[in-house]
């Protein structure tokens, strides 16, 4: 076939490609204008000082302990929150996926409902529950369980609890989406071959649900890394996450670059996490494409 002759299928293909590009153009331009351009601006600022090139904003990572402690605490909180949401979210998603349509809708509604309440309101709600003269301490001391009020908030513990509460839907929903697609026939087949329920769960259901687990973990972990209001209100000042480092640096160094550099490093951490996760599970599956 010579290249000059008109191949109808080829012409069709290139027309379709043009059309796809045209259809994509509005969305693409929005992404470029609102994400790519500001991001480049952020990188640019992070290497500028007094109108010249500098790596000073990055050098602080090497000699300022505060940076390391903030990253360390942020990642520690992210690990704990992720682990807790898996443990709490898995049974809920399992129940929702295995129930009738009505029951599963009800369960999902209960998971998603708090999601529509402002983060600020929920932080204050936790404060009312957990503080020294709060409901939890009040109930425990009325029951005679404790003599002195427990310190449940204004520390890392309170921050972690509220963060788990806020991020639980981000674990349950991808888990539910994955579990729902696992054919029930497979577990039935496992049972008919003599597997005990536990055995069938461990050997058949759990491995098939792992993509959902990884997806939820990545989402929760990455979202925790950027938390600001919750640690600010419930951390008692001692909980010092990366986002707070960003805002502190604007005040302290009077240079956008001092804050940009931290954002860039955090962003690189997020990319690294996505890359690691995509080694386990293809990226499209993490994002819930299939």
């Amino acid at each position: 076939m010579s290249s000059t002759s008109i191949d109808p299928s080829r012409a069709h293909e290139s027309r379709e490609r043009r059309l796809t590009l045209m259809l994509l153009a509005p969305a693409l331009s929005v992404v470029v204008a609102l994400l790519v351009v500001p991001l480049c601006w952020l990188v640019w600022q992070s290497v500028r000082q007094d109108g010249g090139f500098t790596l000073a904003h990055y050098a602080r990572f090497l000699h300022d302990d505060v940076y390391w402690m903030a990253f360390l605490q942020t990642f520690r909180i992210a690990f704990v929150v992720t682990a807790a949401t898996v443990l709490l979210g898995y049974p809920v998603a399992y129940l929702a996926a295995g129930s009738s349509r009505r029951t599963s809708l009800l369960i999902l509604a209960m998971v998603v409902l708090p999601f529509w309440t402002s983060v600020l309101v929920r932080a204050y709600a936790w404060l009312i529950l957990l503080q020294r003269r709060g409901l939890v301490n009040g109930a425990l001391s009325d029951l005679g369980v404790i003599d002195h009020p427990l310190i449940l908030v204004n520390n890392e513990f309170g921050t972690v609890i509220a963060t788990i509460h806020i991020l639980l839907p981000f674990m349950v929903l991808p888990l539910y989406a994955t579990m729902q697609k696992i054919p029930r026939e497979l577990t039935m087949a496992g049972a008919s071959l003599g597997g005990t329920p536990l055995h069938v769960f461990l050997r058949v259901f759990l491995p098939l649900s792992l993509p959902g687990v990884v997806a939820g973990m990545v989402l929760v972990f990455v979202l925790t890394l950027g938390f600001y209001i919750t640690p600010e209100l419930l951390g008692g000042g001692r909980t010092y996450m990366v986002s707070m480092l960003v805002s502190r640096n604007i005040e302290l160094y009077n240079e956008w670059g001092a804050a940009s550099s931290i954002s860039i490093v955090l962003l690189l951490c997020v990319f690294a996490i996505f890359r690691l996760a995509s080694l386990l599970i293809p990226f499209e599956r993490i994002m819930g494409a299939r």
Partner: protein
Amino acid sequence: MRVTLSLAMITTSLVAFSAGTASAEQITFVSQGGAYQEAQTKAILDPVAKLLGITVDQDSAPDAWPVVKTQTATGKPIWDVIDTPTKDCVRGGEQGMIEKLDFSQIPNAASMPAAYKTPYSVAYEFYSSVLAFNKKKFGDKGPQTWADFWDVKTFPGTRALRNHPLATMEAALLADGVPADKLYPLDVDRAFKKLEEIKPHVTVWWTSGAQSAQLLADGEVDMEMAWNGRVSAVAKEGAPVGFTYNQGFLQFTSLCIVKGAPNLATAVKFVNAAMTPEIQANFPAYIDYGPGNPAAYATGKISKERAAQMPSSPENAAKQVLVSTEWWSSPAGEEAQKRWAAFIQK
């Protein structure tokens, strides 16, 4: 921020509109919003507008600093006068973002103490970081000095301090026995050493004024350092809360003018009018913050009882320490702020 920006845009269009149609002078005044700015509207802005026959447009930003930085960087600022922490006026002035004030045009500030003025700013309203305590816990024998605050045996209970070195370090030094008139320049090492002592007893290092009020109101802490306006608001709502101006830390926000302000001449007139003792004396009628110009107390507009509640009344000011903006904007002060985060985290 989005609200601020859109407000700023509305202001710009208003400025453009009125510049095209009316010849009446006008300026854009910026403060921190909320109840505080509402009180100013009645106490200061409306009377000044009437006095000068100008229009005072308003804008607000919780933190004006980054906006001023951005506006002056574009070379076409839209704000004229800002009410902001004095430190921002000074560092803004040094970086060419704030106009130098010509005090010959501001005769109302002539009699004010030198410490209330800088080349770029003039004190506008006073507030104080005071020692507040729970009356239910301590009765009338609440802590009265920072040494008491540090004395966990005589005054057991939970404590809170602001998550910021300003005034907190001064408190530590007073508790350690440094005389009030020998505080500055602050002995940073000594202050941090003293703070380490109280650290295990501090339940919360608060960040926002609202948070400090909530801690007191809910009884989460038995004593804390907080801003006088926040404490008296909590007390007004009926919470058993008391405070003392003794060893309080007097601070003030200042008026300054954005470099290249669109209505520079009117802005200077506005600043002078806003410092008029009779107009300054309106502050206590609307909010628990004191007038920046002490002459306001001599106008007879402020009752003796009300003056006693004001952080800047001569009697109360005498019991307190005036926080040195100069020290805090010096390299040593900035170094102390950098050290703060490490102190809190460790």
